[in-house]
């Protein structure tokens, strides 16, 4: 029998595996390099939806898994910080259907604000973590993660990295499941309601589960040994395993897939057979520290290789203990706001008014670069409003009056709403001004929908979250909407000047579709209008 051979990115492999393994719901928030998982899952016929943020996505996923449905929840690495509150307690609860939490790390920061290593979350939350090293393993570990999750009734983290998500390698899929258990609610209060009386035994249960999973990992966890010269043994995980095998083809190599809890005895047996033991891992010294903690004489990498991605050349240098300065690659062209971008005029205005701009995460973060140079802070999604308020609270009045918070539409829904509540609740003496730069899409990650667009993940119509009405209802004193499509006059400048002079809370929504998304948005709107018209006339006939 010939098995179908496909060339898939890691993201697409996860989506296909989710479909084949019977995942009933995929939720998430878009974030490079994870975004394509849900988009592909939707295109393949799976049920996928964008949530306002990762915490909500995980909460929906937990509910779905409580009801017995296989579920995936996707996000980029920093998204797991947002979801962490739900994650740590979900570890205590029993899930019925498999729950796979997918975190896509971005070592080297191709498009992120930090390069945090989410392997720390597995240990901190006490959750099993699988780490594939190519698309085939991304496919296989999606199945495996769901199976482990159901067997031990525990959420499982699938950790991907940029070069897994966006590298295409060959995948041979397995036959799709034909029958699935129907979701249904079974009451189990002690396993799901984490009041202290139930959470205390749940924590003991969690540790027992982990001990059993560790024993399973020792006996039959995913594990690969390539025997070679015994003078050098390399233990590597994820993409590091591929780089290592290419960098040192003659050495003995061990790679393994379930990287928390560790299969220590299998690693020890390998360590005993080799003279020199080196750990190749991207990011923080997580694995090497764990091996040293149990007394294995593991060698890690020099500190300089903690930063950025690994590649074959860097692994060769690590093995040679070469800490000489690395060749600095010629600088590429940095990204910039698109010609005709709706944000350009806003940043020019803020620059000309010499505002102190508390910025946020999105395309518009590029407002920090020349010719605008109109952003002074940027921390994490939604922080623009809180940070702006903090500046306002303590700066001398003449500086406080220059502070403006700038946030995008998708980011506002993600975590700006609570910032607005804070502004209404604790207004600084000079008031504050928030600008929502509404370009009608999540532009940064490739034009995804969100609750403010009024369209679902597949671009069909749904309810629209109206920012200006929401702000008015929350008690913001001055709410204005400016269509910047044909903004040639000074109206935006005059409005900002006026609002900065007041001791009141203010919101300006600047609205103009992203130039890249506008043609597609017009098509979606047309299709949705036709759909509504067809539904209406069908109702009349009925």
């Amino acid at each position, binding site marked *: 029998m010939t098995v179908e051979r496909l060339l898939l990115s890691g993201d697409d492999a996860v989506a296909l595996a989710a479909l084949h393994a019977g995942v009933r719901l995929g939720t998430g928030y878009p974030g490079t390099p994870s975004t394509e998982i849900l988009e592909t899952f939707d295109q393949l016929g799976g049920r996928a939806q964008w949530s306002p943020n990762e915490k909500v996505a995980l909460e929906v996923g937990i509910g779905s898994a409580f009801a017995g449905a296989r579920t995936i929840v996707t996000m980029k690495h920093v998204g797991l910080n947002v979801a962490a509150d739900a994650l740590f307690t979900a570890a205590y609860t029993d899930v019925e259907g498999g729950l796979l939490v997918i975190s896509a790390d971005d070592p080297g920061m191709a*498009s992120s604000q930090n390069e945090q290593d989410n392997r720390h979350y597995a240990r901190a939350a006490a959750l099993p973590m699988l780490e594939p090293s190519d698309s085939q393993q991304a496919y296989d570990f999606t199945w495996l993660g769901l199976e482990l999750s159901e067997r031990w009734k525990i959420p499982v983290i699938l950790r991907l990295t940029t070069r897994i998500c966006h*590298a*295409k390698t*060959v995948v041979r899929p397995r036959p799709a499941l034909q029958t699935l258990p129907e979701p249904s609610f079974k009451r189990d209060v002690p396993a799901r309601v984490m009041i202290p009386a139930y959470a205390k035994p749940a924590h003991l249960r969690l540790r027992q589960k982990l001990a059993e999973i560790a024993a399973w990992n020792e006996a039959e966890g995913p594990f690969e040994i390539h025997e070679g010269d015994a003078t050098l043994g390399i233990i590597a995980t994820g993409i590091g395993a591929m780089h290592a095998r290419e960098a040192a083809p003659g050495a003995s190599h061990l790679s393994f897939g379930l990287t928390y809890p560790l299969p220590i005895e299998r690693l020890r047996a390998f360590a005993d057979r080799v003279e020199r033991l080196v750990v190749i891992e991207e990011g923080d010294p997580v694995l090497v520290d764990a091996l040293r903690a149990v007394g294995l004489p593991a060698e890690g990498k020099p500190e300089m290789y903690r930063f950025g991605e690994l590649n074959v050349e860097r692994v060769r240098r690590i093995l040679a203990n070469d800490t000489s300065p690395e060749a600095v*690659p010629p600088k590429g*062209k940095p*990204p910039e706001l698109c010609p005709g971008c709706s944000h350009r005029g806003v940043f020019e205005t803020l620059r000309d008014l010499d505002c102190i701009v508390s910025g946020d995460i999105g395309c518009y973060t590029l407002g920090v670069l020349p010719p605008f140079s109109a952003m002074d802070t940027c921390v994490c999604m939604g922080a623009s409003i809180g940070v702006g308020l903090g500046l306002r609270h303590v700066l001398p009045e003449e500086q406080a009056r220059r502070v403006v918070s700038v946030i995008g539409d998708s980011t506002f829904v993600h975590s700006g709403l609570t910032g607005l509540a804070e502004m209404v609740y604790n207004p600084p003496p000079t008031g504050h001004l928030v600008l929502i730069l509404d370009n009608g899409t999540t532009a940064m990650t490739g034009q995804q929908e969100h609750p403010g667009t009024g369209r679902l993940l597949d671009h069909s119509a749904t309810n629209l979250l109206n920012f200006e009405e929401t702000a008015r209802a929350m008690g913001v004193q001055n709410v204005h909407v400016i269509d910047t499509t044909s903004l040639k006059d000074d109206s935006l400048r005059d409005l900002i000047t006026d609002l900065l002079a007041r001791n009141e809370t203010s919101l300006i929504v600047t609205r103009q579709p992203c130039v*890249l998304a506008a043609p597609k948005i017009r098509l979606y709107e047309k299709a949705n209008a036709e759909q509504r018209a067809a539904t209406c006339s069908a109702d009349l006939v009925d």
Partner: protein
Amino acid sequence: MKVKNVVIAGLGGQGVLKASDILADAAFRAGFDVKKSELHGMSQRGGSVSSDVRYGEGLLSPMVPPGEADVLVVLEETQVEINRPTLRAGGVLIGPDVIAPESLKNKKSLNVALLGAASTVLDIADEHWIAAMHANLAEKLHTLNEQAFEIGREAARARAA
């Protein structure tokens, strides 16, 4: 066959990733093991973009190690020097100057024209190139891109002759 390393580079919006998808797909259809790697995210915003395609036997890392590219395809003149360090000694550089600007009906097909030029030094049969283009491009663009591919191929041959 030993591993063939190709790097395609340019600016966001030029079709670098599309070109590398077509190349990877063509090599895949030719029966090779293939790995393709790219960085995108902010690339839509006009910044530098590059993508690595490797095919052949015994593939491991999806990234072409620095100084080991057999072929470097660059879509934008300003990006040639930036990417030159990826090329091995004796490797083939295919820059945008291979194509005379007036020879393409649509400038957007430069990526495919340069693939055509690269095809003269890559051992992948025509049928796989055509099938890969059809699978990765909208149907209404097939003729235009097949022509661009041919123009690139002829230009490279004329230059080599």
